């Protein structure tokens, strides 16, 4: 059952993709019901699978492989593995994907490429499920790239827009940078252990085998594989693609760039967690922390509703990565799950707002006003009650307010970082963690207030706004329900007693003892001792952030402009996204221009010089050879001809045509012979 069922779940979206791409246009409603229906079946099966797995086979790992490719003496397997991690992730992916499918039926209505859109959603779901289900890192890499390409196709869905096609290119290329590192990491593992299967790699390391016999290589392999996660999960320094990816349709942003694809990086780190050394984990933790801080500080000043959400996604992903890095494995993965629900909800809510804004602007024949800019919104609360209340729940969840799912997971992460710092002295990590928690609460409530509260920026636009249709509000309500604590733990103030903590346990490290991160028991002991402190601190900080947001934007006690002026260069840096894009432009684009110019010079002077020189030499040689040909060879040939000609002319004189002359010759010849022989 645990081999066939996941395979069915995996292949359903692929089937939907194939059917829709080939015959979608001929199906009624362009086949959206097909994709959605298949996804619903996949979701049902995943739910059943998870429940069965957790109730009946909680501690078992089901892994099954068939031979896929045989290369020389190596065989590469196609394998499916179901453990608790995969089962939970499977449910998250299918659920969010299903809700996004349903939402898209409303949001993408009347789109020019409606059918293709649902097809690619199917392809994406298939690839994402492949990442989740595989037991083999090469196969994971294959699905990883498939996810990349479907993300590329969906970001560039409106490819007539130059910015959309540029964003798609940027996402794909930036991801390739990370994937390159991941590929090297995979190759290091393969050349050391001649296997791609996680199980074999882990057991080889546990048996004391190290890549190329050195601990450094093991750390390097871990960090290189993490590079893939840096790309996909938009971690510093490769986070620049995610905000641009918001050019895609909003449901796509919800599915791919909030809930699932970007979480694939976190999932990857969770998968390879047992083989990560303490050094690799420390790097991972710091990368996560830097990402969380940078993204949160940028999100504060953005005005595009989707850009704010994009930066908050990067920031939350940084949280998850940091959590895994400090060893708070369960907390990190739990944050992935809770974040998937409330961030997908936030994006769908934003989609609902943008949809309504578009409709209103369309009625006014206004094509200049930006439908995504919060400065054009305000006061939408009364017009869109369902969207508002669900958005509020999501905002509370991401801010880490008690009774929400986000509180549970974020609290555990913060406790984890605090515990880590008490064990190892890296106090910067919890400091950043708490700071980012406060920033998150601040910018999320800023977004909520600017969008829904206050006075409308433009009464005409506001009066044209109306609540979105049911296909769009139902996913919001479902996700809002899933953002409450009860689904994860019955204790609203601690996740550790819930089913989630029971199901997802931090795997034992397989690396040599000296290189291991803080031991399981020590770490969890430290976590439980600092848990209350962390919880109180995080509640206070979230409350502080929310209070700040209200006093600046709702009650206008503090002027935002004055604050911005006071912050000076910090404000400028934040609104310019800390100049990452500009730095990359200068460094990589201009850098490559310089290299290209140098190469062009090289091409034009050296290569062309060699070619032209060769041509000159050849011309010279052929001139000599031509001279020899013309004068010596032709001379010989012509000389022969001339000689024959001259001789012929000479001899032809005796052929006078006069018979009498011939006769005379005969007689003379006869006389001569006569004289000789007589």
């Amino acid at each position, binding site marked *: 059952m645990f081999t066939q069922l996941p395979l069915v779940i995996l292949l359903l979206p692929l089937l939907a993709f194939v059917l829709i791409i080939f015959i979608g246009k001929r199906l009624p409603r362009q086949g959206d019901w097909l994709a959605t229906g298949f996804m619903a079946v996949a979701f049902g099966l995943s739910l059943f699978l998870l429940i069965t797995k957790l109730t009946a086979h909680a501690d078992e790992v089901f892994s099954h492989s068939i031979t896929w490719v045989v290369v020389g003496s190596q065989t590469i397997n196609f394998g499916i593995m179901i453990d608790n991690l995969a089962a939970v992730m499977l449910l998250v992916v299918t659920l969010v994907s299903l809700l996004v499918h349903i939402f898209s039926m409303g949001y993408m209505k009347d789109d020019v490429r409606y059918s293709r859109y649902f097809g690619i959603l199917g392809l994406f779901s298939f690839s994402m499920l492949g990442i989740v289900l595989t037991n083999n890192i090469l196969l994971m890499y294959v699905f990883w790239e498939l996810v990349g390409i479907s993300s590329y196709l969906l970001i560039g869905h409106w490819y007539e827009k130059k910015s959309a096609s540029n964003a798609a290119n940027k996402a794909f290329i930036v991801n390739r940078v990370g994937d390159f590192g991941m590929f090297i990491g995979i190759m290091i593992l393969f050349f050391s252990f001649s296997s791609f299967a996680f199980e074999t790699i882990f057991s080889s390391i546990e048996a004391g085998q190290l890549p190329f016999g050195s601990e450094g290589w093991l750390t390097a392999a871990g960090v290189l594989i993490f590079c893939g996660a840096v790309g996909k999960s938009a971690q510093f320094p490769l986070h620049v693609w995610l905000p641009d990816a918001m050019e895609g349709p909003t449901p796509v942003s919800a599915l791919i760039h909030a809930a699932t694809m970007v979480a694939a990086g976190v999932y990857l780190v969770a998968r390879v967690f047992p083989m990560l050394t303490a050094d690799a984990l420390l790097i991972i933790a710091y990368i996560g922390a830097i990402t969380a801080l940078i993204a949160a500080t940028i999100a504060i000043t953005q005005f595009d509703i989707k850009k704010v959400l994009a930066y908050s996604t990067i920031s939350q992903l940084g949280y998850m990565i940091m959590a895994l890095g400090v060893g708070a494995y369960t907390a990190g993965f739990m944050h992935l799950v809770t974040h998937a629900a409330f961030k997908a909800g936030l994006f769908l809510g934003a989609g609902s707002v943008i949809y309504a804004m578009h409709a209103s602007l369309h009625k006014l024949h206004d094509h200049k006003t930006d439908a995504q800019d919060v400065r054009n919104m305000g006061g939408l609360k009364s017009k869109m009650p369902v969207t508002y209340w669900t958005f509020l729940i999501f905002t509370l969840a991401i801010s880490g307010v008690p009774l929400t799912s986000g509180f549970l997971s974020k609290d555990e992460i913060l406790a984890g970082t605090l515990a880590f710092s008490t064990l190892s002295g890296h106090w910067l990590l919890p400091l950043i963690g708490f700071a980012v928690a406060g920033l998150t609460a601040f910018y999320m409530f800023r977004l909520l207030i600017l969008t829904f509260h206050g006075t409308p920026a433009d009464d005409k636009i506001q009066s044209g706004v109306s609540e979105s249709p049911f296909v769009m509000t139902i996913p919001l309500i479902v996700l809002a329900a899933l953002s409450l604590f009860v689904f994860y733990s019955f204790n609203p103030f601690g996740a550790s007693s819930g089913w989630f903590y029971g199901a997802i346990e931090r795997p034992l490290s397989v690396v040599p003892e000296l290189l291991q991160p803080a031991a399981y028991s020590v770490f969890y002991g430290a976590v439980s001792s600092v848990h209350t402190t962390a919880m109180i601190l995080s509640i206070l900080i979230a409350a502080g952030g929310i209070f700040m947001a209200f006093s600046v934007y709702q009650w206008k006690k503090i002027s935002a402009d004055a604050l911005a002026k006071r912050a000076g260069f910090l404000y400028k840096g934040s609104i310019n996204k800390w100049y990452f894009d500009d730095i990359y432009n200068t460094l990589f684009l201009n850098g490559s221009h310089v290299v290209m110019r140098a190469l062009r010079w090289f091409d034009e002077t050296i290569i062309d010089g060699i070619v032209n020189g060769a041509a000159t030499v050849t011309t010279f040689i052929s001139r000599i050879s031509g001279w020899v040909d013309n004068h010596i060879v032709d001379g010989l040939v012509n000389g022969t001809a001339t000689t024959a000609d001259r001789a012929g002319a000479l*001899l*032809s*004189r*005796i*052929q*006078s*045509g*006069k*018979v*009498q002359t011939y*006769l*005379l010759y005969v*007689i003379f010849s006869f006389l001569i012979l006569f004289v000789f022989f007589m």
Partner: protein
Amino acid sequence: MIDPGLTHFLIVGAILFALGLMAILSKRNTIMVLMGVELILNAANINLVAFSRFTELSLNGQMIGLFVIIIAAAEAAVALAIVLNVYNRYNTINLDQINLMKG
């Protein structure tokens, strides 16, 4: 009076042959060349008959002489016909002007 012998006849034949040869080589007119040919044939005839008279060959030489006369008559007929045709074609029977085979 000298009794004519074989030598005398041969000398006459030789003179006749030389005259014919001279006519063939030096005459421009084709008819004249043909007449030279006839002279040579007759020189040969004189020789044949002379040899027939003064040696043991009895009448064989005279028989061949008769043959030669007949053949010479036929040859003259054919040759004159050729000359006529040549004249028709070239409007001349001057051998110097009939030099189509000049190399």
